[in-house]
């Protein structure tokens, strides 16, 4: 198993507790992070989340942890990776916090800092998916499935592939899965241009984030 997952986050020192430092860092670096301070701790988001009970720290708690200055506990947590973008919380939050976006923003920030839990399946799938689509501009379903199934080793991959065979066949029949995708995959016409656009976007994004507290952002 991954070493970093078992590593205990260092405790927050008294001097950092309930100070605005981490809140400001979040505001500067996390998408929609400036909303965190507006939470009134009503708990509606946590109660509305269909997976809420499975989170170690549901959204309300994450927001309070940020305000309490618990930087490591928040950023190393796998809680915000649990968000499935159902938008239940956003619809219900009395303070109109864009909670879903903040969850993804936090996850993304932790990932950029390189302290997100490495084995988190959501993170790994996201990475596989991104690489897959960014490469040709169109998802290669076969490659994506294979990479996903074999993410946790060969034996597991075979088992998953076997388990999902019915679905794969159905997708193939409806033309949703190219059986030769492993050898040749038809991307978009001008994948090169897409790459240029993505590089440019990344540049702009990094420059914007660079305006933050000077936190080192690790490119992935």
């Amino acid at each position, binding site marked *: 198993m991954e070493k970093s997952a078992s590593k205990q986050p260092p405790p927050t020192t008294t001097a950092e507790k309930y100070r*605005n430092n981490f809140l400001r860092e979040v505001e500067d670096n996390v998408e929609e992070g400036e909303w965190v*301070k507006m939470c*009134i*701790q009503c708990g509606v988001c946590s109660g509305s989340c269909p997976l809420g009970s499975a989170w170690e720290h549901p959204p309300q708690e994450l927001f309070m942890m940020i305000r309490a200055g618990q930087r490591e506990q928040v950023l190393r947590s796998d809680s915000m990776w649990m968000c499935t973008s159902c938008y239940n919380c956003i619809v219900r939050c009395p303070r109109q916090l864009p909670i879903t976006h903040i969850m993804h923003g936090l996850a993304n920030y932790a990932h950029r800092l390189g302290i997100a839990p490495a084995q988190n399946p959501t993170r790994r799938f996201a990475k596989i998916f991104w690489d897959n689509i960014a490469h040709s501009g169109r998802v290669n379903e076969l490659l994506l499935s294979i990479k996903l199934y074999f993410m946790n080793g060969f034996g597991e991959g075979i088992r998953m592939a076997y388990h999902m065979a019915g679905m794969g066949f159905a997708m193939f029949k409806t033309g949703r899965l190219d059986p030769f995708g492993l050898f040749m995959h038809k991307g978009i016409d001008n994948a090169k241009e897409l790459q240029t656009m993505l590089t440019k976007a990344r540049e702009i994004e990094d420059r914007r984030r660079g305006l933050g507290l000077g936190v080192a952002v690790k490119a992935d």
Partner: protein
Amino acid sequence: MTEPKLGAYICKGCGISERLNCDQLAQVASSEGKAAVVRQHPFLCSAAGVEMIRSDMAGQGINQVVIAACSRRAKTEAFAFDTVTTSRANLREGVIWIRPDHEDNQETTQEMAADYVRMACAEVQQMRQPGGNTETGVNKQILVVGGGISGLTAALESAAAGYHVLLVEKSAALGGWASKLYRSIPTREPYADPQDTGVELLIHRVQTDPQITVYLNSYCNRTSGAPGQFSIDISTESGATHTVNAGAIIQASGFTRYDASQLPELGYGQSPDIIDQAELERLASAAGTEGSIVRPSDQAEVKAVVFVQCAGQRSNQPGHLPYCSGFCCNAAIKQAMYFKDNNPSVDTVILYTDLRTPGNGEDFYRSAQRKGITFSKGKVTSVVPGKQGAEVFFDDLILDTQTSIQADLVVLATGQIANAGIDVEHVTSAEEPTDKTAISVLNLSYRQGPDVPQLKHGFADSHFICFPYETRRTGIYACGPVRRPMDMAQARIDATGAALKAIQAVENAVLGRAAHPRSGDLSFPSFRKEGCTQCKRCTVECPFGAIDEDENRYPLFNESRCRRCGTCMGACPVRVISFQNYSVDTVGQQIKHVEIPDEMDEKPRILILACENDAYPALDMAAHNRLSYSAWVRVIPVRCLGSVNTIWITDALNSGYDGIMLLGCKKGDNYQCHFVKGSEVAHDRMSKISDTLEQLQLEKERVAIHEVEITDIQRLPALINDYADVIEKIGMNPFKGF
């Protein structure tokens, strides 16, 4: 005095004639009711119907009118005859609407109606036309006690309405607490930032108003009299005394701040860096708009401040305040902004258990969040002073941890304690001796004590919702934090309300009329000295301190202080107290004139004495909803359950009623009784009636008393029907026919 001549008028409209035999009712009115003139009309409340009555008054000399139609609460304008006495037989809401339209019921329904006609005829013969209190005072000045926000506002509002105001302030300056604040909670859009208190302007306006006379360094040394005729000795520090007169008094004596040294666990008094909100105002004023707030221990700029909410409040610990003072959450938000607005990098944390932001505080709260003030739901367990600053230990109730924060300055949200004077109803006991430190505010010369009575937690008694400014001393109105904890914005609204009530009081007093809740009533209690045994029950039970004692120890009625509830009348064991139009006889004769069927008829009779403020309207509304209740009941409205004299109960039982139900308002600390104590004393009296029942060898179920609310529209008919079942079960009163 002209000969009494009774006219009975029976309405046939609203379905009455379809359900009832009106000719029989007319027969009852003339033969049993002794009506000289009896008429039926298809639509009595119409102009033609009313004209018919008026022409009888003019032509036939009718001076007692019985309207047998709808409830006395309906068509009051049509049937308002101020030169004659009027009684109403409630055939619509009281009979046809609450009885199912079925031929099986016809007989009992008709009997009900006939009884109500008999009762109304009997009542009106006992009534006299009230002439108004002649012991009136004519002084319309308004005395305001207290020169804080509430007092200043009350003075200005009264003056603006054209009344001369005397303002008494015990300190050397006007302004009260407000003048000690750096800024106040915003009262205007967008409710985002602290704003100027505005108290300077108020003071200026008061000082320059020709209608307002201000007495500084002064207090009320003696207050006597009644609405329209108060006399107040104002003593000044220099020793001089001015005797002034006023028609009404507004008590705006405000609050004292809770003594935070009773909170050693929160470190108060152990470090200059642990302060209460009032002290922070001083620091903020010292810093002004230019400088930063510094901590008292070493004058270093405060970089981290923690606000501890509910310090010694909302707690049942001895010495703590059990209530929420209501202003301190908004005040903490405001004070945190003092820091943030000056320097956004200061860390400001508000530790609360429930954040309560009345008024437009929700917007203010939002603004504070935008400014980066940290709110944390946490219960503070201790504050430990350091060399500088302090460490605040608390249970974070969201993160479920015991934790702490380091702060340069800790601000405790302590509460308000009412300056309501001496608790005149406090019964001293060994565990709870009287508060020796309490100072009287009014020094009333009333027999009932020097100050207005208190309700809970030392606040002046006034009904929180229905009559917030009425104290239990007529003509004296409490406003501001003396009657409940509040902030400045609320105090200003409160003061305006109290000013309005004071104005109504003087205007009613001058005309010899009652104040709230029988505002405008011209009747007043009179008392037959010859019969009085000097038992003092009336003096003690009057909820409003209207009865003093004369030099011969007889009760001395102050008609102008009286609210006309009749509690004294209910109290009097020898029945010497009465009103012109409401007396032991007006009700007693109604009770006597109900026809009590023979035991063999198996038709029980249940007397209901219903408070006319809530119970009777609820019965009317039940009728509007066409709910039904037993045909055995006969309802008599009473001014207040407190006015029920036990003679009515014993007479009713002796004359063969099978059960008696008393319906009054809620009593106790959360009372709804319009006369505050009336329902309570009635319950008290009824608890003693069991002896009488025993003497008569009657079951205790024969007398029942209930607290009801005006909304008990469904409950009330059910209550009555259940009671009718009980009575049918225990059987007929053996006294029938005697």
